[in-house]
């Protein structure tokens, strides 16, 4: 046979499931200056590492977006963006803490549709330095009653000593998943750790024979206590 054209192998890509990752950031006036600046820096810095991890796991399709709240709430990225195309838009701080409004937007996004009924558990990382100024409770209850709200891996980062830990624990459902960042270094570390939740969800660590399978790598969470102690002992820059 002479000079035949070459036809590609048939079929499509490996079948994958979407993994929705949502940064939910408190942009109230108290986040002004260094807090919001550190958040902007730290989240942007996680992008290459999240991309690397996602590239190595074609079984998951990592989709990221950002929800900000202050006086009102809004999606910074209205539609989920593939991690390959995700660009961090710097947030600025001003206004009050309308967490309830943000939870309402989050609920709409976790409904089926727009969510598919088959997916990996979504990851929601809530960062806040204060307490909600609106009536967040009914919204949170409704969120936790939804199929994807219930199944989501919910992590909270409490920034500084004014953050309302009780509210954040209501959100995460587990006190271990409320991380307290008392200074800049701790905040950067915790944001970095939270970003790895995406790969822990898409490729969870092995379960031991008698240990109950956990949703997240709790060992890593415990390791963060080191970061917490840095926050409490450091003399400079304690929030």
């Amino acid at each position, binding site marked *: 046979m002479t000079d035949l054209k070459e036809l590609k192998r048939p079929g499509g890509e490996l079948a994958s499931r979407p993994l929705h990752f949502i940064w939910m950031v408190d942009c109230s006036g108290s986040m002004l200056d260094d807090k919001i600046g550190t958040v902007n820096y730290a989240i942007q810095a996680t992008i290459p*590492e999240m991309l690397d991890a996602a590239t190595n796991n074609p079984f998951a399709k990592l989709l990221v977006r950002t929800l900000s709240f202050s006086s009102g709430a809004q999606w910074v990225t209205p539609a989920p963006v593939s991690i390959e195309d995700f660009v961090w838009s710097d947030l600025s701080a001003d206004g009050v803490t309308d967490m309830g409004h943000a939870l309402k937007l989050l609920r709409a996004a976790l409904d089926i549709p727009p969510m598919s009924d*088959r997916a990996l558990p979504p990851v929601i990382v809530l960062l806040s330095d204060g307490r909600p100024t609106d009536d967040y409770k009914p919204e949170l209850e409704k969120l936790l009653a939804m199929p994807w709200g219930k199944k989501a891996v919910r992590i909270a980062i409490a920034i500084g000593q004014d953050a309302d830990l009780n509210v954040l624990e209501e959100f995460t459902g587990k006190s271990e998943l409320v991380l307290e960042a008392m200074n800049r270094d701790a905040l950067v570390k915790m944001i970095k750790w939270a970003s790895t939740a995406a790969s822990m969800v898409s490729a969870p660590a092995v379960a031991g024979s008698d240990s109950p399978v956990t949703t997240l790598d709790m060992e890593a969470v415990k390791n963060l206590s080191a970061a917490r102690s840095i926050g409490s002992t450091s003399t400079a820059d304690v929030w």
Partner: protein
Amino acid sequence: MSLLEDGVFLCGVSGKRYEVMKKLGAGGQGEVYEIECDGHSYALKWYFPKFSTDKQEALIENLVRRGSPDSAFLWPEDMVYSDTESFGYVMALRPKHYKSISDLMRRRAEPTFAVLTKAAYNLVAGYEKLHAMGFAYGDISFGNLFFDPDTGEVLICDNDNVCAPNAANPMSVFGTPRFMAPEIVVGKATPSRNTDLYSLAILLFNMLLLHHPLEGKRESDTECMDVHAMYKLYGSEAVFIFDPDSEVNRPVAGVHDNALIYWRLYPEYVRELFTKSFTTGLREPARRITETQWKAALARLAEGITRCSCGAEILQKSEPCWSCHEQLTVDNVQLTVVAHPDNLEMLGLRNDSSQTWTYIRADGTQIPVPPGKTAAIAVGARIEFANTGGIQT
């Protein structure tokens, strides 16, 4: 923030002096740098302090001493220390044109079936040599394997956990979810040569079929793929999607299309090895398919690949082409595509065989085509070759 600064010099145990050129990346255990010595470039993996353990150091010393199983490995060649407690090891740099298996799965690398089969063969051959040295790899998966999409040459990376595990000294890694043997998923075993053989079968199935062998109806019926669901799917309740004795986990059209497209393309002897891997091999670690069996099957597969006139590679000559659906037994048909002497745009097929063909026009009229004569390629016409199915012209 980097552990090492560009321009720093480090001494190797071999006596070589390396200059740090630039950071290439970071992983869970440390960072990777490009380094130079005497005009040659190498890669350096440098551990985070937390992972600079005595155990890790002893492991790598042993790997350097034993030497690489095969050129397919980016093997530790030299140990490097700094003034601090930290250390690292030197290995060859991965050439840029190599693609990851993840690229293959995402269709960002498009090798032919022939190259893909060769890459699969080379990986099996590499692991065979590693196992022959008494070692286990522990984490066969997409992330640490690379291949040349034009030649099928392979590179096996991340060899720093390679060891000879036993009950007293189990491996410190468990492997990668979806690749781990079921007995590891359920916590009854740690990585070994036999769990490597399971992960290897998972890898080969994924490479050849672009699908996971345990993801069928059970997967599509699972809405939330959380750790509990994965424990069952890949561990306690794993069922092969083409298990001849159980139809409960068949691929679902529209969800698992690659499995449905590719499975029938491969010859029976390949499907049989996969079937054994994910039926008896799921439950009986000592009865998994060995490298020798895979090598024989993959070599036979590579040898049998032919190309249909439509351009598609055919993996089984006895089956119709998967693309144009024509039966073409290339080996038995000797022909040449020729242009009409008076009209170069009109093409025909010249019978170069020793037997007479039968040309069947669209209206059904049959005309014999003796050896040396040419039949025009025309709409609706067919040629019956002697003793074969024939092709549509």
